[in-house]
């Protein structure tokens, strides 16, 4: 099957800065993919190169099998990008904006889909309002609608929830999940790691123009973070057998690293043998944030060594 997005050894340099330093990745059709990394990692440059806003110095980028330079018309028809910055044309209303955007893709009579987009993004009441009069969150919804007017098989959302209220976030994610279920590939960049963890099946992490981790969300979580048994007890000290990697948190509970259910059993058995009275007990799930911090720290050492 043709990949939704194929990036092969893409490089882009601005002066002395390697904005993209040999990026390769593939996103399959229907995949929900996260592109994470600190500011300046190169996420937006990569997205811009996909959309033809930035020209890569070398390497290849394809959208639905179409090269973004040689076959740019087909590539752009297959791609919908929601830009990170809120931009709008103050001369037009919401509906006019969406009609114009449809026209640029050669689509006439797109009114039915535009109505649906307005409805799904709760923009209906503002359809005839001038863009200038809309709040920031509303403007962002219009940007989402604009990226979807041509029903692209690949949708890229560049920090769509930055500075957006809870209600829009919920509406947006419900709609995007539905599009994903209908077969659209989604590429998401965000600084809200819990969003990426919840939505995305695969994650790429970038730093300084390079990919420093790329794997299934579940595997990344399993490889880079450990489950923790959090337990507060009275009646004895922490048995020496459990002290490896253990730490005491601010609430007086011990955090013990555990790999699976068997280790939880063992730890609890040791505590009982030592005469502990357990007051509180929980197993904390691994979090993407922890993985992210670990990977970035490791990548920092690596890039430091390279320089």
């Amino acid at each position, binding site marked *: 099957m043709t990949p939704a997005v194929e990036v092969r050894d893409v490089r882009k340099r601005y002066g002395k800065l390697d904005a993209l330093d040999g990026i390769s990745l593939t996103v399959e059709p229907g995949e929900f993919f996260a592109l994470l990394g600190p500011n300046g990692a190169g996420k937006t440059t990569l997205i811009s190169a996909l*959309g*033809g*806003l*930035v*020209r890569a110095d070398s390497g290849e980028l394809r959208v639905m099998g179409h090269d973004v330079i040689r076959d*740019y*018309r*087909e590539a*752009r*028809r297959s*791609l919908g*990008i929601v*830009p990170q*910055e809120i*931009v*709008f*044309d*103050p*001369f*037009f209303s919401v509906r006019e904006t969406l009609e*114009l*955007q*449809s*026209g*640029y*893709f*050669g*689509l*006439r009579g797109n009114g039915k889909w535009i109505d649906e987009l307005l409805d799904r993004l709760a923009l209906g009441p503002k359809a005839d309002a001038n863009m200038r009069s809309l709040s920031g969150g509303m403007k962002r919804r219009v940007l989402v609608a*604009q990226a979807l007017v*041509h029903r692209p098989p690949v949708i890229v959302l560049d920090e769509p929830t930055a500075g957006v209220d809870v209600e829009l976030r919920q509406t947006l994610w419900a709609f995007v999940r539905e599009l994903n279920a209908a077969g659209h590939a989604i590429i998401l960049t965000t600084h809200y790691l819990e969003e990426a963890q919840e939505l995305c099946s695969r994650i790429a992490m970038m730093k300084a123009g390079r990919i420093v981790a790329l794997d299934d969300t579940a595997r990344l979580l399993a490889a880079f973070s450990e489950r923790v048994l959090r337990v507060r007890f009275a009646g004895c000290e922490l048995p020496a057998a459990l002290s490896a990697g253990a730490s005491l948190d601010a609430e007086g509970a011990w955090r013990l690293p555990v790999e699976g259910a068997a280790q939880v059993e063992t730890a609890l058995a040791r505590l009982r043998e030592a005469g502990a009275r357990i007051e509180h007990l929980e197993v904390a799930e691994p979090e993407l944030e922890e993985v992210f911090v670990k990977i970035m720290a490791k990548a920092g050492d690596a890039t430091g060594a390279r320089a």
Partner: protein
Amino acid sequence: MTGGFRTLLRKEVLRFWKVSFQTVAAPVLSSLLYLVIFSHALAAHVEAYPGVGYTQFLVPGLAMMSMLQNAFANSSSSLIQSKITGNIVFILLPPLTPGDIFGAYLLASVVRGLVVGAGVFLAVLFLVPLPLAHPLWALAFALVGSALLGALGIVAGIWAEKFDQLAAFQNFLVMPLTFLAGVFYSVKSLPPFWQAASQLNPFFYAIDGFRYGFFGQSDVPPGTSLAIATGTLCALSWLTLRLLRSGYKLRS
């Protein structure tokens, strides 16, 4: 040209039409003021062509000057505004070809030029009786002149990164070239050096040929003027398309 071209043209026309008070009415008023002031000050002293009063002589020149300046303003201001506000991505992300973008901005500039030109004539219709010896020549020069400045506006809009750079382009290139193109005088009244200098100015041919359409008299034969103006338009169009294809200052 693809389907997207039509939409982009429509958008570019709507853009100025929605603020027509500023983009059409204002330049028409400026032209009227020039007409009133210059004809009052100079009518008694100057006869540009035999049998043509100075006020009459002035009207086509002023109309053409407005057309040229507004055609330039249309494409250049639209592009710079889109670049600075960032909404240029709306036309860079869709599958529009360089030809679509060039054609739409150029034609919208021509439409703005023609609307402003028509406005000037409508406004003076009852004040100054004007012959129309060769309407097709007049139309041809109106089209080529507006297109020439529309294309120059695209180049300026692509090149400029800030409003003051665009203003410099306008104030130090477009304004002097239009003012010195024989709007207010016949170049035959100039000393030989300035006559020769005027003939290097492509805008001169647009104005001179346009005036031929009204009075049947001109400083240069209209065929020559049309050939030079069209040749300049072709050269500028080639340059503009090259810039758009290369992504110069639009796709980094």
